[in-house]
């Protein structure tokens, strides 16, 4: 056996040994495996329930008719059973705003063939930013749809009319940002404390503590396992919402902030609770404080004081950082403020963890 004083890489190797053991163990442990599978299922469900799916025949179209000449029903049923729900916009700005959360925006431009009554009609189309990769396909699809509806050849030209929500927009536009943060936080919550509690309950923690592993390496190992699964969860979210991302840098920063806070916070929780029962009791305030606000902070009708309050939560701050990666621009002040919030909470959780380690060493 090598009895030289271990160096940095040796220390890292020990932490990795613990982490890789836990990564494999998560898949063998019924509780953690169930949590992991449920989360993946939930992510896919959230995506499925908030996105336009290939088999969706209920498409939402916002129409801004500059000419005032085209009037018709608010719902059109096509021959194949598909349904177009038409929403009227009062201005081009409203059209753009609404399109961010719908499937298509149509601008009937004054002075075009619609007024001249000729057989050919050109409509300016707008698509939400998450469908920008499919512009050509949508042009063809909607040209066919509107030709059928209006009974004459229609060309929907989308061109560069892609509607990206502004960074301060409210509503569901940034739901994917929350989903990604939620994946990271939930996986950290459902795996990391379990890994620590189980070591203590089975007394295998004693085995680790008499081995060359230090308390810090054990905790780092658990953190590595948590980070691995948080990355898997974030990776699945990123794959699902690939089309929504306008800038990957804030998404990456948001992931790092979410992962750092979630894992350190959960390590601290894992150090404080003594068993699975206590963890279940602790889960309720954690979910209420950290997860529930991320559901509603984008709600347009939320009281201003409540929005300001929940904006101070690290989970909401991390969601906002990720959300900037889905917006038309990155507000530098907002980005730095939210990074500072998550790092401050991470530092506070680390302090708790640090004192736990010091106390365990006495």
């Amino acid at each position, binding site marked *: 056996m090598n*009895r030289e004083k271990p160096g940095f890489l040796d220390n890292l*190797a*020990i932490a990795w040994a*613990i982490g890789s053991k836990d990564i494999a163990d998560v898949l063998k442990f019924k509780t953690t495996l169930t949590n992991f599978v449920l989360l993946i299922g939930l992510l896919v469900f959230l995506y499925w329930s908030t996105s336009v799916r290939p088999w969706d025949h209920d498409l939402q179209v916002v129409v801004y008719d500059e000419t005032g000449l085209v009037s018709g029903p608010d719902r059109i049923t096509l021959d194949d059973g598909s349904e177009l729900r038409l929403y009227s916009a009062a201005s081009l700005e409203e059209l753009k705003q609404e399109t961010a959360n719908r499937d298509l925006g149509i601008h009937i431009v004054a002075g075009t063939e619609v007024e001249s009554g000729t057989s050919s009609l050109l409509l300016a189309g707008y698509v939400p930013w998450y469908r920008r990769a499919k512009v050509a396909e949508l042009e063809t699809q909607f040209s066919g749809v509107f030709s059928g509806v209006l009974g004459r050849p229609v060309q929907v030209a989308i061109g560069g009319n892609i509607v990206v929500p502004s960074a301060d927009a409210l509503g569901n536009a940034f739901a994917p940002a929350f989903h990604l943060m939620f994946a990271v936080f939930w996986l950290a919550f459902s795996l990391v404390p379990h890994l620590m509690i189980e070591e203590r309950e089975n*007394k*295998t923690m004693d085995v680790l503590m*008499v081995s*060359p592993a230090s308390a810090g390496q054990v905790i780092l190992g658990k953190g590595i396992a948590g980070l691995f699964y948080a990355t898997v969860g974030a990776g699945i979210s990123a794959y699902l919402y690939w089309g929504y991302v306008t800038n990957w840098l804030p998404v990456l920063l948001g992931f790092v902030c979410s992962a750092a806070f979630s894992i350190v916070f959960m390590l601290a929780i894992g150090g404080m609770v003594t068993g699975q029962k206590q963890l279940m009791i602790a889960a309720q305030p954690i979910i209420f404080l950290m997860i529930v606000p991320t559901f509603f902070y984008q709600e347009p009708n939320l009281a201003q004081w409540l929005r300001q309050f929940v904006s101070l939560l690290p989970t909401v701050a991390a969601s906002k950082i990720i959300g900037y990666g889905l917006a038309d621009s990155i507000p530098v002040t907002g980005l730095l403020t939210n990074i500072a919030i998550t790092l401050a909470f991470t530092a506070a959780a680390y302090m708790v963890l640090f004192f736990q380690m010091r106390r365990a060493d006495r």
Partner: protein
Amino acid sequence: MDTIVVDSLTREFDGTRAVDQISFTVEAGEIFGFLGPNGAGKSTTIRMLTGQLRPTSGSAQVAGCDIVSQRDQMKPQIGVVFDCQNIYERMTARDNLRFAARLYRVNGQRVDEALELVGLTDSAKKRTKTFSNGMRQRLVIARALLHQPKVLFLDEPTRGLDPHIARDIRSLIVQLAEQGMTIFLTTHYMEEADQLCRRVAFLDRGRIVALDTPAGHKAAHQSTYGGEAPTLEDLFVKLTGSYLRGGERM
């Protein structure tokens, strides 16, 4: 040469002394018995000597390393068999040892050697949750020996095992000591201590009340037993645990 040197080692919990200024030495290759009733301070002493707990005062060296200031250097030189069979149940026997091998930075070949030493080669690929008590105990011993420690701490290694397995484990302990490994043994089986240990310390309420060879202990108390040599069990009952029988509590 002394492998374990303990000097006035004390540990207090909330003002109560669990271990009270104990001092002793253990030579290299010696099997040292550390006997006492439940709550006497055996586990606290082992936790201090294995670096899991800091002493309140006093000092100790294990394998030439101070248990506080040189704890990191000491850890690779000790092996510990706990009083519970703390193994990873969802892992196979081989994976349990492979994981330990990574922590101790030992060659993978040692895993097979350790499994062979305790007779678990044929069960190496089985998940340990299917193991019997005896197999589990052999596995925790294999894990403690994997890195060929200088000092082996055994906390009731044969408790609850059938006589065949217990005998095998005792033979292994003797064999290891003959090879020069220092063994620090706690047990509630006085016959086992009598048979294995070169010296035995009786611990009562955190203090060592007697320390000698088994023969020395018996000779010292022979006169009080009408000239007949008492057993270690007789002496254990006499010297320790009066508070357990309704006497003064610690």
